[in-house]
């Protein structure tokens, strides 16, 4: 039976990803001074699981790394070693290497880099606990020796690889002979002998040297193409074949030596198995295997508990199940004897199991062990009972669907919502009494399509932990890099938002967090001097507020320096009002090329950054705000819609045109009085509302719609929040609050300033969705044009 292992790869990849992520977050939580044993166990389990899967699915490079990783973790969890910070560093590095390896395998390649050897050697060295914890050098990954000679063991291991097809001898005929000869030098582990692939063997033993091996090869074949290389410890112990124990197999049968057993010390039917690794010496001379458990001894009456070991598995003698194994065979035999004749296998038996049935079948006479009354008859019963069919497992409760399919579904549902709106609009002319059924049908349709829409949207929703989870590592590395002490607190990781937003949030958040550590959090000395705890704290918080998700990046650092920002603004010629509000000043850091860093560091301060962050957020229809208090810290707040596809909007009318204003931007709307409108030199027209002068944005001017609107006094003013502070937007009428499906203008046209997209109204017409941040910019750009022209007339 051939099974295509590749079908399990994807599951393994995903699972390994999860384990790596778990491992990393646990490592970051780990307190090396007071390690939590359960945590160490969990980390060990993660490494262990990856190793098991990697080995099984043939990703030997990952198996190798996880093996050394696991070995060290095992010593830690058994408390044979005390964890030190350097170990966590090594573990994290190993995790990174594994991630790279995993990624390469996903792409059908193998990751090759010297850091693999480096991290293995590093872990290996830590495992041997050569340095007492306190004096461990603060070795960084790069500082670790690429090859550590001290890890060479007394018994050298040689890796021999060659391609039997390319070499001058015929494979099957001479491979065994070759193996036998090599086996005389030391212990030979045969590994990877799949047809068509190069053979890899490992030979170890005291005094084995290159010359011996070469001599043997020279004798049998051409040395060209045979690679013989010494292995360092890490490699040796990581290679599955080199692990003696792994390859050993044992089988224990409590049955008295059956004829077959007695005659075949190696359990022939297993020894013949096509499985790769075979331990040569035991097979040849019947000596105890490396594991210390003997193979079956010939002695008749060896019914004393003996273990059976075979190629990769074993059975314990005297163990409860063995009885069953033996009696199962006995039971079969009995049945055979009664029904079909003594030696015929029962029908339906896979023929390949014949030899397997034979050997335990000799144990019919098996005496029951002391204390256990189970013999053949009860087991027969047992076997009969177990005929009850079992339900298969529930299986995975989730399926994988491509995002495209989900998006297609979302689009279709969007169409449905629009279609409903159109129908509803058409129906407004109908008499509700006469067409009661139509109206109740429409309201059902509305409810159903809205529910459908929500359900479909929820498919795309993912917890924000997908982005948050990377930050413990980011904070740790960044802080270490800057020699600062920073802890990270995550709040509201379960908050869900659209997958598309999650992906696009990662970069801006990364920048903000690094920025907070670099510019926000002070050095430990400064913090102490300021009477603060040496360790700074960064809090990442996510929550839902209305139809929005709000993400905050808080730090308890020095806060923004208002004077410095203002000085910088003057230096750069950024126009500022005479007495700008804090908000206006702080907002400066989002301006292009505006960095207040005194010195350029690796982390930030290269002049790209905050403006890019702002643009990224705005592209997601989001907004970013900053608050800061000197000496106490800075808070950056990002507000995003839950999804990119739907917007809660307010339909506003201006002449014949309808526009959609994002509800998130609207603060209030007012019916202004004439005296509230003012013209301030340099700032153009403003609206005075509760003592504050807000820039007045007249859409028909900006959009050059001509004189379509009403006079200002008859208009409605909507106060909206923008990145530049509040502004007053003049519209003719507020129509209705509604959810709209966002359509991109860029699909068939291009970006239009002041407009973030379009939607389709209930009557089938297109309405543009306003981008208030761009509107305020457009308004500023128009100021010079406007002052001194016809604006006064418009006011009148």
């Amino acid at each position, binding site marked *: 039976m051939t099974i295509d292992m590749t079908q399990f790869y994807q599951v393994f990849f995903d699972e390994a990803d999860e384990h790596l992520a778990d491992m990393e977050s646990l490592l970051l939580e780990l307190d090396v001074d007071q390690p939590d044993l359960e945590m160490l166990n969990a980390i060990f389990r993660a490494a262990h699981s990856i190793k098991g899967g990697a080995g099984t699915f043939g990703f030997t490079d990952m198996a190798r790394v996880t093996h050394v990783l696991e070995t060290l973790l095992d010593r830690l969890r058994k408390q044979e070693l005390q964890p030190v910070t350097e170990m966590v560093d090594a573990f994290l590095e190993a995790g990174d290497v594994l991630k790279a390896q995993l990624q390469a395998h996903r792409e059908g390649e193998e990751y090759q880099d010297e850091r693999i050897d480096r991290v293995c050697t590093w872990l290996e060295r830590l495992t041997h606990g050569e340095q007492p914890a306190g004096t461990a050098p603060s070795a960084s990954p790069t500082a670790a020796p690429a090859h550590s000679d001290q890890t060479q063991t007394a018994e050298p291991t040689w890796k021999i690889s060659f391609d039997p097809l390319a070499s001058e001898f015929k494979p099957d005929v001479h491979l065994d002979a070759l193996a036998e000869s090599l086996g005389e030098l030391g212990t030979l582990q045969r590994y990877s002998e799949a047809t068509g692939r190069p053979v890899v063997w490992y030979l170890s033993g005291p005094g084995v040297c290159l010359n011996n091996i070469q001599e043997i090869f020279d004798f049998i074949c051409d040395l060209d193409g045979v690679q013989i290389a010494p292995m360092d410890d890490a490699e040796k112990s990581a290679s599955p074949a080199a692990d003696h124990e792994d390859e050993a197999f044992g089988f224990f049968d409590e049955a008295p030596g059956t004829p077959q057993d007695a005659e075949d010390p190696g359990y022939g039917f297993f020894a013949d198995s096509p499985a790769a690794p075979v331990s040569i010496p035991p097979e040849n001379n019947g000596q105890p295997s490396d594991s210390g458990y003997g193979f079956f001894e010939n002695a008749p009456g060896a019914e004393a508990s003996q273990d059976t070991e075979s190629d990769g598995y074993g059975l314990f003698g005297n163990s409860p199940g063995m009885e069953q194994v033996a009696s199962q065979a006995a039971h079969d035999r009995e049945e055979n004897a009664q029904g079909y004749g003594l030696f015929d296998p029962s029908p339906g038996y896979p023929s390949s199991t014949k030899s397997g049935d034979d050997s335990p079948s000799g144990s019919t006479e098996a005496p029951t062990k002391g204390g256990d009354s189970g013999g053949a008859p009860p087991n027969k019963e047992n076997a009969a009972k177990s005929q009850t069919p079992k339900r298969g497992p529930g299986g995975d409760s989730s399926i994988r669907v491509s995002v495209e399919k989900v998006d297609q579904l979302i689009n279709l549902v969007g169409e449905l919502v629009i279609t409903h709106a159109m129908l509803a609009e058409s129906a407004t002319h109908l008499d509700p009494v006469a067409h009661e059924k139509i109206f109740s049908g429409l309201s059902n349709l509305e409810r159903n399509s809205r529910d459908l829409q929500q359900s479909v949207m929820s498919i795309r929703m993912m917890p924000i932990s997908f982005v948050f989870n990377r930050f413990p590592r980011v904070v740790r590395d960044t802080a270490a890099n800057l020699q600062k002490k920073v802890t990270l607190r995550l709040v509201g990781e379960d908050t869900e938002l659209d997958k598309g937003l999650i992906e696009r949030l990662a970069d801006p958040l990364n920048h903000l967090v690094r920025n907070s550590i670099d510019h926000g959090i002070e050095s430990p000395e400064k913090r102490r001097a300021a009477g603060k705890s040496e360790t700074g704290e960064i809090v990442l918080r996510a929550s839902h507020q209305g139809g929005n998700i709000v993400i905050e990046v808080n730090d308890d650092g020095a806060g923004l320096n208002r004077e410095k920002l203002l000085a910088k603004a003057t230096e750069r010629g950024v126009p500022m009002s005479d007495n700008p509000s804090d908000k206006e000043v702080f907002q400066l850091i989002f301006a292009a090329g505006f960095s207040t860093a005194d010195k350029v560091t690796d982390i930030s301060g290269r002049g790209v950054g905050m403006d890019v962050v702002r643009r990224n957020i705005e592209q997601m229809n989001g907004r970013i705000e900053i608050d800061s208090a000197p000496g106490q810290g800075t808070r950056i707040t990002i507000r995003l819609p839950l999804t990119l596809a739907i917007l809660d909007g307010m339909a506003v009318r201006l002449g014949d045109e309808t526009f959609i204003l994002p509800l998130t931007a609207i603060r209030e709307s007012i019916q202004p009085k004439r005296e509230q409108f003012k013209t301030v030199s340099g700032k153009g027209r403003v609206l005075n509302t509760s003592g504050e002068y807000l820039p007045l944005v007249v859409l028909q001017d900006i959009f050059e719609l001509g004189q379509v609107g009403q006079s200002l006094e008859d208009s409605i003013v909507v106060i909206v929040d923008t990145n530049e502070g509040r502004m007053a937007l003049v519209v003719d009428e507020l129509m209705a609050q509604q959810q709209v499906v966002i359509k991109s203008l860029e699909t*068939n046209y291009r970006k239009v300033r002041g407009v973030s997209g*379009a939607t389709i109204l209930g009557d089938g017409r297109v309405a543009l969705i306003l981008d208030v941040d761009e509107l305020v910019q457009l308004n500023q750009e128009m100021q010079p044009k406007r002052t001194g022209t016809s604006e006064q007339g418009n006011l009148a």
Partner: protein
Amino acid sequence: MSEDLKERAVITSDDSREYLTFTLGDEEYGIDILNVQEIRGYDAVTKIANSPDYIKGVINMRGVIVPIIDMRLKFHLGQVEYNQFTVVIILNISGRVIGMVVDGVSDVVALKGEQIRPAPEFGAVLDTAYIDGLATLDERMVIVVDIEKLMTSGDMGLVDRIQNESS
């Protein structure tokens, strides 16, 4: 897929291609029919701020937002009142859907390669860069337009130009 099939069918019929001809002012133009998605009447459009006058706005075509261009305005042929005979040719230009208002659609004709002669420099309203050539049909002269090239050109302002992005 179907595009490919269509294309092959057109080409194999002794090397000729089908063109949709339409009129603009006094001139008759032909465009590759493979770029034509459908022909429809003129609907109310939603105006787009700060766009050139020939971009009338956008319409909703079964959930797709489609920009509408008035070719008369683009080529300064004077304004015409839209009426129930005004025709919009919906084009599909490498995946983008664009509507083009013309005076009228006249015909679908098959033209062989050799029937299309290179266009001399002449006073057409269209830049010769977008003209594949001239063909004579009966007594009429048809100006064969490379509509794909025309619509994606910076001239039309339909597509964001990369270098223009740094607004």
